[in-house]
């Protein structure tokens, strides 16, 4: 039983990472009907940016974390403005190919930057290798602080995002633009600027995911491939909502963790896709999928 709980907690922590990246996918998809396949790579760049703030500028972890998120928001907005906006009106396929290209570009460029390069870096977080015992030292549930931080920060981030979308004028305008871009245009909502901000938000969330994941997987050019697991998470959650992305991520993370222990070798790596296939058969719209079709 203890073993099971242990696996659930570590699975949930990784699931939170999937959830954050999935959230990045979902935000951009809802706003622009484009799937950004460079989402995982944005996460990787976020890891490197945070690493540089800490190692090169000597900033403390939490300050580097905040600054990296801001920098990633800027990068996301610039990407929309410079690369995506000129493609407005092009077929979705073209745009998707461009985002795949952006991913390759990011991985390639990162290896060319002197300090970043092809090596694997350790992010010197203050809570490295610390653990907390629940229910008696040595006998209870052991939770690594790295996992705990991921879960706590994800919960905080998701809650504030939820409040932002629900209660602020800008947040509601972002939802409005996602639901009916034409109507937003008619009401004088600056649709293009809003889409740019959504890219910024999405990149910032991925940057946060990268920095949370870094203590576990280290920072390296290919760390963005976890994005491949976030995509199933988004699908399981219905590709449409904040709670959906969170629940989807948690399901994939926990199933993977349990499969890795209880099932034969190799199943772990395909567990996410098995879950997606099952989901698509049983509930094609995902757990939180809505049936309202989007106009325009």
């Amino acid at each position, binding site marked *: 039983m203890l073993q099971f709980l242990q696996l659930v907690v570590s699975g949930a922590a990784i699931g939170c990472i999937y959830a954050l990246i999935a959230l990045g996918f979902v935000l951009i998809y809802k706003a622009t009907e484009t799937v950004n396949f460079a989402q995982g790579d944005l996460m990787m760049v976020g890891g490197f940016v945070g690493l540089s703030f800490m190692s090169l500028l000597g900033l403390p972890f939490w300050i580097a974390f905040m600054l990296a998120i801001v920098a990633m928001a800027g990068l996301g907005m610039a990407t929309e403005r410079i690369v995506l906006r000129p493609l407005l009106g092009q077929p979705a396929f073209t745009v998707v190919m461009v985002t795949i290209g952006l991913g390759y570009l990011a991985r390639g460029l990162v290896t060319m930057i002197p300090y970043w390069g092809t090596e694997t870096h350790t992010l010197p977080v203050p809570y490295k290798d610390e653990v907390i015992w629940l229910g008696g030292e040595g006998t209870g549930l052991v939770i690594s602080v790295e996992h705990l931080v991921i879960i706590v920060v994800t919960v905080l981030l998701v809650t504030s995002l939820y409040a932002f979308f629900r209660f602020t004028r800008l947040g509601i305008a972002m939802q409005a633009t996602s639901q009916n871009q034409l109507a937003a245009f*008619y009401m004088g909502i600056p649709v293009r600027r809003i889409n740019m901000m959504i890219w910024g938000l999405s990149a910032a969330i991925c940057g946060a995911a990268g920095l949370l994941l870094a203590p576990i997987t280290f920072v390296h050019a290919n760390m963005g491939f976890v994005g491949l697991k976030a995509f199933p998470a988004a699908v399981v959650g219905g590709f449409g909502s904040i709670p959906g992305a969170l629940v989807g991520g948690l399901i994939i993370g926990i199933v993977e963790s349990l499969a890795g222990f209880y099932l034969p070798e190799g199943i772990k790596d395909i567990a996410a896709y098995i879950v997606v296939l099952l989901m698509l058969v049983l509930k094609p719209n995902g757990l939180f999928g809505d049936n309202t079709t989007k106009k325009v």
Partner: protein
Amino acid sequence: MSDAILQLNNVEAAYGAVKAIRGVSLEVQPGSIATVLGSNGAGKTTILKTISGILDPQKGSIQFKGEAIQKRDPAEIVRRGLVHVPEGREIFPLLTVRENLLMGAYTRPSSDKDEVAHDIEAVFGYFPILKERTSQPAGQLSGGQQQMLAISRALLAKPTLMLLDEPSLGLSPKLTKEIFEIIVRINRERGVTLLVVEQNAHIALQYADYGYVLEIGRIVMHDTCAVLREKDDIREFYLGVKQAGVRGERRWKKKKNWR
């Protein structure tokens, strides 16, 4: 310089190679209700889109309150007091009724918060049913209620001129009548000038002051609605009144009848 609030001069607009309106000129007097009548595909929506800046005209000028507004950004045109209620309502389906209304006020400064809350109450005065549904997602409203919401949302932008694209579309005659009566009240009580485009000539001619008839992208006739109502061509082609023996002069080619 005329004292019209809106003036179109020889406006032409196209979708790629397809010319949708040709040399359209029209005027709307402040405080009045003007209408453009035309059958499906005549170019009514195109005229409105060109006015509100969604579509740029290829030729011609559009003056609103004496200033040229052609090729301006839609958001700027809304800020100047010209709002477009699009064909097919186009509400935000997953936002609540109240959130939809707030989005109508998006171009107003955020310092207007109290006034916006007050204005929301004021539009509920016109459409009490919306007040009962404030927290419901707009997508769950009936077609008529969505039309009411679309009109209310536009009112939240504090327009001096409101463009309405076929408010009767898909509504029962009774509901259409109700909506038009409220439109007239909004015009009288709030002094909002209205330009309504309609296929339903019967209802539009009943409530509007001045009318234009649009055929295949051209204005073919215009006069006060009182005069238009009595014209034989209009009666035959647009109001579906069959008049035995009266052939009359035709100003435009005979076409399919509809009601």
